[in-house]
């Protein structure tokens, strides 16, 4: 007989312990986040905030078996790079470009703990409602990713990615953990915009050159210069205004806060500097970064017939 031997007795005891021990613990699982899920967000061009969520089942029960009591759990998430860093997506070719994001967790069950914003590498303060028996009530957990438009505008165009580690802690005595992964991909389109344009109405001519202008905003996401191309409403884009019969020529200059340059109609001024990169309106036009100035020479005004002269100037900026 097997038990006749003292050694055999110890072997049987060891086997029983091996079998019994797991059965005395609960279970924690993170559903489809294990081994991992990939979220490909739609390309972002000129939209607003991004908000996207992933629903899944967190199984947390006290003991094994499909009827084991449900156990509460906590959840945390962190970047797969440095756990304590703020949540961000990293530019694939320029790691210095970080798109900051936020995560929040929602307990989807009616008696659940509601929504809680996550802090990197810290378990939620609230107990969440776990599930047993493979989540018979369906999903019970939601992770929502938020990206503010302000943050989206402030980074370069390109592809961004981060693999987030999602960890739950629950089961018997709330001490068991399980880890899943959530990879987020996002492509931001290169963007440029000119704004803050104003009509120009010159004061009456009294013998001196008429000079007027204003500052405006040129935004582009990411590092780089831009080009400016201007045209007037005269023939072939000429810088002229008209009273319907006669023409008055004008000249124009562009200042990009680095240099003032004469603008030639339909000829690109390349290498313009200092585009605003934080938002498309230069902080609501309080930080405009370019100035357009229009001049009508007295020598032209002096020989012109009286009347109201008008014309349209078009400005086109393009990223370089």
């Amino acid at each position: 007989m097997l038990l006749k031997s003292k050694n055999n007795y110890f072997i049987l005891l060891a086997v029983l312990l091996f079998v019994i021990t797991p059965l005395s613990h609960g279970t924690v699982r993170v559903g489809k986040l294990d081994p991992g899920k990939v979220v490909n967000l739609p390309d972002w061009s000129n939209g607003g905030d991004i908000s996207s969520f992933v629903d899944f089942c967190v199984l947390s029960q006290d003991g094994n078996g499909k009827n084991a009591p449900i156990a509460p759990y906590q959840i945390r998430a962190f970047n797969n790079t440095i756990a304590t860093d703020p949540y961000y997506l990293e530019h694939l070719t320029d790691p210095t470009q970080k798109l900051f994001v936020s995560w929040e967790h929602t307990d989807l069950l009616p008696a659940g703990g509601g929504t809680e914003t996550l802090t990197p590498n810290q378990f939620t303060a609230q107990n969440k409602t776990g599930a047993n028996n493979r989540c018979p009530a369906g999903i019970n957990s939601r992770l929502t990713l938020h990206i503010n438009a302000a943050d989206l505008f402030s980074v370069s165009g390109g592809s961004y990615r981060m693999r987030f580690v999602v960890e739950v802690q629950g089961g018997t005595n709330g001490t068991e953990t399980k880890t899943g992964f959530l990879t987020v991909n996002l492509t931001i389109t290169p963007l440029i915009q000119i704004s803050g344009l104003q009509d120009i109405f010159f004061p009456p001519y009294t013998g001196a050159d008429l000079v007027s202008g204003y500052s405006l905003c040129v935004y582009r996401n990411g590092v780089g210069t831009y080009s400016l191309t201007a045209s007037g409403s005269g023939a072939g884009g000429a810088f002229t205004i008209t009273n319907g019969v006669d023409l008055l020529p004008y000249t124009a200059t562009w200042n990009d806060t680095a240099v003032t340059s004469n603008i030639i109609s339909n000829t690109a001024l390349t290498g313009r500097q200092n585009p605003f990169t934080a938002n498309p309106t230069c902080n609501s036009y309080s930080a405009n970064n370019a100035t357009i100035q229009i001049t009508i020479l007295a020598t032209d005004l002096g020989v012109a017939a009286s009347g109201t002269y008008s014309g349209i100037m078009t400005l086109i900026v393009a990223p370089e």
Partner: protein
Amino acid sequence: MKFMKSIKVGLFALSLGLITNTAFSANDGLLDPVNSSGDFLITAVLGDLIRISSLDDMVLPAFTGVGSISNSEAFCVYRNGTGLYTATVTGDGGDGLGATFNLWDGTTNFMPYTVTYNGNPILSGGTTATLTGNTTLTDCGGVNVANNATIVVDVAESVLLASPAGTYTGTLTILVAPM
């Protein structure tokens, strides 16, 4: 004789019918991957402008007992666009109290004079026919460089013979207006 310089800037001719883009207002560009295009309206209102310049005080030659005495003064009239203008010439009565072509010796004696504008006789307070001024240079190129109008003052022999000796003065005002 003393001339008063006069410059008149005409009322702005707001020929609103000529404004082709009154409803236009500036447009910001759109946020775009390739380029962004905005536009704005430029407007300049150029009113009628006129100017008289290069006027000088005039000293008539001394009367020698025979013939009238006269002198001329050339000056510049600028008017933008068409160049068309009229001039109104007015004396001050010599004593500054009237509106006639008179010179005054400071006491009780007056000497009437006559005036021609570009060769055409004109009465005090009278207005010329429509004339054409310089349309490109507000000063005709400089002081007395290319004057385009002339006024002549003449005191008749009979007046001179009937007047006591003395120094007579008066002010002549030329008012030009765009047409």
